[in-house]
């Protein structure tokens, strides 16, 4: 298949006089994972809302699964599944009833429904919780059920809006595993996140959104290449070691609080050996030694001049 699963050009959206999306172009290949990365208020949810027919863009065109979101809304809706930022589950129904509701609305054949529902309960480790009211579920279980509900009917394109925000590390890993399984099965995933490691882990392509504009797009590796700064980090047992090493390795940045020294380096064996030899010559022992290639945090800082943790007004 050569036509993209999602193609958007010149997307604009403003609420009153506040511009939220300021000309966005996106293309997501079928069967790939695309991650939209950005801090709070960057416009991630608005983008998802426009792509999933919830909001109409002020300008620009969007085709999802080959259909125009403005004129062929029903066809788009048939092709997609959406899991929003908050678990959209029905508290007064049981887990099983929530899934059955989706199976009925998706018009699965009556004979097929139980198998689909049971399969999803099994896959999301919710079999035991299935007969209980969702109001008794933990946050992680609700998110799992939410995603399971989205998967009923096996939509070909799935939108996940910050699927792991607020999840504990274990549930996060489970969620990642599920995303990988889905992609292996040929599903296209559009994922928004504010976690850089998440985009790094899952996405084939990443776009960085800041104040309604895409400031960068590419594979995680490509984005990392845009920022210089791979380095070697040494950690010392005490301040004496740090002082001595700082005298020997000129051009290093020291962090007295953590007793670490950052030395710019390409991370290759030759340059690392040179560094280690230099320390050895003066009998300086480092407790710990690691090579860092820049992560997406560094990318974001380099692209926007701000760290990702900065909170911007919604």
């Amino acid at each position, binding site marked *: 298949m050569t036509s993209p699963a999602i193609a958007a050009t010149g997307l604009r959206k403003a609420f009153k006089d506040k511009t939220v999306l300021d000309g966005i172009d996106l293309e997501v290949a079928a069967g790939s994972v695309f991650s939209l990365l950005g801090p709070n208020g960057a416009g991630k949810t608005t983008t998802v*809302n426009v792509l*999933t*027919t*919830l*909001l109409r863009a002020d300008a620009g065109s969007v085709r999802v699964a080959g259909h125009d979101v403005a004129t062929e809304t*029903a066809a788009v*809706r*048939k092709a*997609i599944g*959406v899991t*929003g*930022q*908050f*678990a*959209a*589950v*029905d*508290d*007064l*129904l049981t887990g099983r*009833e929530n899934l059955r*509701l989706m199976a*009925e*609305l*998706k018009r699965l054949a009556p004979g097929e429904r139980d198998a689909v529902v049971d399969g999803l309960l099994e896959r999301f480790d919710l079999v035991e919780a299935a007969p209980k*009211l969702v109001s008794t579920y933990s946050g992680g279980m609700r998110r799992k059920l939410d995603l399971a*509900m989205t998967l009923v009917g096996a939509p070909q394109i799935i939108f996940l809006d910050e699927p792991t925000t607020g999840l504990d590390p274990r549930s996060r890993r489970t969620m990642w595993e599920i995303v990988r399984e889905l992609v292996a099965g040929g599903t296209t995933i559009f994922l928004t996140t504010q976690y850089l490691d998440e985009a790094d882990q899952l996405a084939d392509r990443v776009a960085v959104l800041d104040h309604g504009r895409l400031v960068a797009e590419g594979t995680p590796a490509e984005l990392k290449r845009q920022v210089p700064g791979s380095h070697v980090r040494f950690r010392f047992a005490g301040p004496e070691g740090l002082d001595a090493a700082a005298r020997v390795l000129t051009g290093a940045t020291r962090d007295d609080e953590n007793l670490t020294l950052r030395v710019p380096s390409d991370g290759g064996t030759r340059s690392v050996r040179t560094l280690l030899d230099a320390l050895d010559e003066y009998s300086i022992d480092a407790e710990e030694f690691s090579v860092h290639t820049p992560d997406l945090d560094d990318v974001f800082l380099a692209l926007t001049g701000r760290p990702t943790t900065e909170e911007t007004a919604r």
Partner: protein
Amino acid sequence: MSTDAAIMVRRNLKHTVRNPIAVFNAILLPIVLMLMFVYVIGGAFDVGVDYVDYSTPGMILLAITYGLSATALAVNSDMTKGVINRFKVMDISRGAVLTGHVVGSVLRTIIAIAAIIGTAFLLGFRSSAGFVDWLGVVGFSLLVSIAFSWLTVGLGLAAKSPESAGMAVVPLIMLPFLSSAIVPADEMGTGVRQFAEYQPFTPIIEALRGLLAGAPEAGDVIPALAWTVDLALVGYLWSISTFTKRA
């Protein structure tokens, strides 16, 4: 009714069964109010007839409006938790989820109306209404309940939080008190009296009063029907447009 709406109605029926407190509230509060007015306060009012006979139509209306806050809360929780968005991005009929809420709301109201009429009879309510009049009472109460349910669905959709959704229905619950429900409008002070005469609840209550007495008057029934149909239409159109607009 489309199949999507039928599925949603089943969802709301389950909600009703699993939330007995909401049903209980909708039934109990009007009954308590009725007992208060008939036994405690009503004796001091001179309304020309037995107070239980006078107050029953107003109490039927209170039974309709008291249940509305549960509807507003349920709709608002669907809206704010993203459940409505989940349905909106699916290829299902627009507004099916709202129809489900309206049917759930009307159902709860029917139980409350039956309970209040039963209580009225226990308190000595006598009606000279014939079978056709009773059909009129039932049909008209149903229509009023549908109209106010749609209005309430709109309030629930538009409200930013469950708290404001709960507050938004308070005027609907208070309005019957400023009508001819408790005492005749012409007993009220200037200002309130004019308000009571021209607000929709007064003709609605007077039409019910006429039907229950077996002597409906066109002068009450026609404006009451006009108000109810208008309110139903406004509530429906407003709900659908809010539903479409809010993401």
